[in-house]
């Protein structure tokens, strides 16, 4: 059971109050991109063992989207941060590094 804190309304709730929205920080490849890029944008998602950055929605609450950094092995939530970011903020990175030194996720480390 994951315990998430919504950064929009400040509510700390358990998993069933939220809904997972898949991988975070996707870069869109639309018109003008190659077929390979578009394919990867649509289908090539990471499925890491360990640190994972995801989108979540507080669907039984304030209804807002946000980002969460969690560990797929220990089910620990390193932190949540607003959806209006293109990369994880420094405090989230520090929290992950404290538990998992040398971690990396896509282009972030």
């Amino acid at each position: 059971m994951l315990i998430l804190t919504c950064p929009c309304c400040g509510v700390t709730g358990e998993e069933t109050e939220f809904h997972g929205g898949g991988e975070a920080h996707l870069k869109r490849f639309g018109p003008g991109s190659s077929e390979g890029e578009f394919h990867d944008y649509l289908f090539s998602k990471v499925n890491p063992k360990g640190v994972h950055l995801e989108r979540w929605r507080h669907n039984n609450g304030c209804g807002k989207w946000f980002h969460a950094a969690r560990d797929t092995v220990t089910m620990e939530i390193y932190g949540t941060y607003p959806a209006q970011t293109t990369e994880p903020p420094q405090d989230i990175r520090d929290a992950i590094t404290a538990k998992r030194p040398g971690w990396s996720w896509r282009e972030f480390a």
Partner: protein
Amino acid sequence: MSNMVSALNGASAKGFVEVRDMGLQGMITLRGDLNAAKLKKAARAVGGADMPEQGHISLGDTGGAAWMSPDELLVLVPYTEVDARLSEIAKAMGDDHHLAVNVSDARCMFGVSGDDALVREALAKLMPVDLSARAFQPGQFRRSRMAQVPAALWMQAEGEARIVCFRSVAQYVFDLLKGATSPGSEVRYLAR
């Protein structure tokens, strides 16, 4: 004019605490920039209560205002005055970006009353929320789920909870509450 009734027309059930449909309640969804002075002023005037803090509800004599999300308030007003209050909001907000809609007939409100600890215990069976008296106090407002449907909850007073849910699931929520309060099903975790 047609006879307006709430979803369950005042149904009630008496278990170890009492559950009842609260009847017609005027509700206005007010969305916009909650930090804007104009919106704060309009919400105060229409709801007849102070602007609620994040995660809280403020209640006045005839209504109140609840904090739904960073850009949304639920304003409680008497059912018959909704249209008048809506035009008040429109006048107060002018051209400023906002949304005010009458949602009175899209929602329904339940009351659960009785011994404070038993009321909390009945609701805790249905919602993934810490309902201990220390964690959830009168004045706090929590949107969550009740079994399988979204619901919002606050304590009107000690031993007096209010629940707002969608009208379409009114019977479902009533049956849930009725089951959770059926005599003999006390958990005796919060209530000793």
